[in-house]
């Protein structure tokens, strides 16, 4: 712990994003007052007005991508203030949907000129917060799972970190004995490449995994792409689907040019 206060001092922050991970913390409705009893939340602009923007923090949670210079400033300040810094949500951990913009030509996005104050100055690419400063823990999910967040808080209060599911969504789907979306429905399901912890929620609703929790450790992208292509699914569809949540990884696959060629055809 960084401060000597009886209750750990906590800050909750958002960079560019949908605020869904902060909302998931508010969505711990039946546990919220208990959390407030154990944590001294001193800086949380989304939920409070009496905030201390300068004090040292024992634990800080931050969501979103760095899309503007202001985001970067905010992130650096939070890193300096925090003893234990947690990235919450797929945007902060992997880049998520906002990172999709990186593969599109800038002029497509913004028209011709944009004269903005420094406040709005964009960084070249929207990138995950974890690309810029060291983090002590990464809690993925779009949005984060309530249960995983609570487990994390409990563990950090006990001076440790939680053991969260490290298996792919595909594994969780198999343990539920759900019919495979690829084999039985010829769908582009990202479950074999995506980190579990959601309990295969989408296949459980008869929907293919979109990959919203970001990549599992050592995903075999090539094998997945071949598996989809063998079932007659088009390159264009595979690229579009995988790009949605696997953007940073997709880039490094060397398939970027292929995807661009297909898009331009």
């Amino acid at each position, binding site marked *: 712990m960084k401060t000597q206060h009886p209750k750990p001092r906590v800050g909750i922050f958002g960079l560019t*994003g949908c605020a869904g*991970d902060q909302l998931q913390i508010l969505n711990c409705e039946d546990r919220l007052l208990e959390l407030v009893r154990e944590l001294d939340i001193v800086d949380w602009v*989304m939920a409070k007005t*009496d905030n201390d923007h300068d004090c040292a923090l024992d634990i800080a949670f931050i969501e979103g991508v760095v899309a503007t210079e202001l985001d970067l400033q905010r992130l650096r300040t939070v890193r300096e203030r925090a003893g234990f810094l947690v990235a919450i949500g797929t945007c902060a951990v992997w880049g998520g*949907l906002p990172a999709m913009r990186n593969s599109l030509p800038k002029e497509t996005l913004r028209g011709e000129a944009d004269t903005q104050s420094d406040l*709005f100055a964009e960084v070249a690419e929207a990138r995950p917060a974890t690309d810029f400063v060291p983090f002590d823990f990464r809690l993925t999910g779009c949005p984060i799972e309530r249960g995983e967040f609570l487990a994390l808080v409990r563990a950090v209060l006990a001076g440790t970190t939680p053991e969260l599911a490290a298996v792919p969504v595909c594994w969780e789907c198999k343990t539920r004995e759900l019919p495979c979306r690829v084999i039985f429905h010829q769908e582009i399901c990202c479950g074999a490449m995506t980190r579990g912890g959601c309990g295969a929620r989408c296949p459980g609703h008869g929907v293919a995994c*979109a990959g919203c929790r970001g990549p599992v450790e050592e995903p075999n992208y090539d094998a997945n792409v071949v598996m989809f292509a063998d079932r007659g699914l088009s390159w264009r569809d595979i690229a579009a689907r995988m790009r949605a949540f696997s953007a940073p990884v997709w880039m490094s696959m060397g398939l970027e040019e292929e995807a661009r060629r297909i898009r331009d055809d």
Partner: protein
Amino acid sequence: MTTRTVTIPHLGRVEGHGGIHVTLEGARLTEVNMDIHEGSRYYEKLLVGKDFHEVQGIITRVCAICSADHTVAALVALENALGIRVSERTSALRGLLLRGAAIESHALHVFALALPDFLGFESIMSMAERFPDEVAFALRLKQLGNHIQSIVGGRAVHPINTLVGGFGRLPSHKTIDSLRRDLAQVMDPLSGAVELVSSIDVPEWAAQPTLYVALRPRGSDFGFRGDVICTSGGAENPVEDYGQSVREFTVEHSNARHAALETGETYMVGSLARLKLWGDRLHGVAEESFGVLFPDGVTDNVLLNTRAQLVETVYCVESAVQFCESYLAFEEAEIELQEVEARAGSGIGAIEAPRGTLFHEYELDDDGKVIAANVVTPTAQNLANVERDLRHSGDCLLQTAGVSDTDLKRSFEMIARAYDPCISCSVHLVRPGR
């Protein structure tokens, strides 16, 4: 005459990143800006080339609090583009989803974001000591809204079960029957909350005539789905002409567009607008609550929006019970999903989201891939009116002797918050060149 500025760099208790910047000359406001400095995410461009099946999963992430509303608006627009009519059961279930989203969103705003202003607290957490039962109930109500969204949409934030043509998995009758009972149980404490809120004075310095805009609900009851855009000035336009009636424009200090009507007038969308236009269509306890919270009908004061949201919360709970009952009247089934053939076309979907009228429009090619997308959010429509209200109330307060900058700041924050801005929603867009 001395020039000075009053700045709120980062508004608290609102969704997203925004601030207020005001310049004064003596006791006169010369410049009033609501700065929106949330980064743009360009969702409309990101959708180009995506298959129509993928649109909802992407566009829902424009905003977490309104994710169910963006979902329904997108699905309706896509179904219009593809020439599909969904079943009555799908429509009922989507109606239930919209009620769940509104209960969650309104409970969050009324109790956690707005009410602390009126009761002199800095957050719902600090309110809990003085008002433990009320806060516990507010959180339970919010949870109920999320419970509905989980049952119908598969989870509370960013629904997954909601598909073009229907649902991946239908909730069981047992689940809906149990939900119906949960809903019935909040009616009594909800009336208590109405009493509490009706006892809190609403300041007058924000009162000024405003133009209100809302969709006319289908049928003869209150509701969130309609096909005609109506103004309190009596103008009516079909949803298809939204591009004509809602004129969006860019301003220097905001990453979100502003909007005005064809006439150049700014306007308000949201709960207060809906009650102003259609409050006489309420029945049951919602009608009674409307009477308690608005004894003189809807009067022009944006700070009353919190009361309007509470009336709508009562409406949503009652209406959700009705949707449960209609759902239970259908024979139980596991899935309901129409076969959808890709085809070229374009379609518009408009609904009343908690914060006001939301428009989605998509154009698809022969393969069902997105050629163009457009989303007009309630917050973007409200921003010009927020600035107008800030200017008016600033002028009003400066007439009063002994008003400090701290008082001004607090009042500005209250106005901005009363609109319940959803800043993430408002900056999804593509900023055209100047």
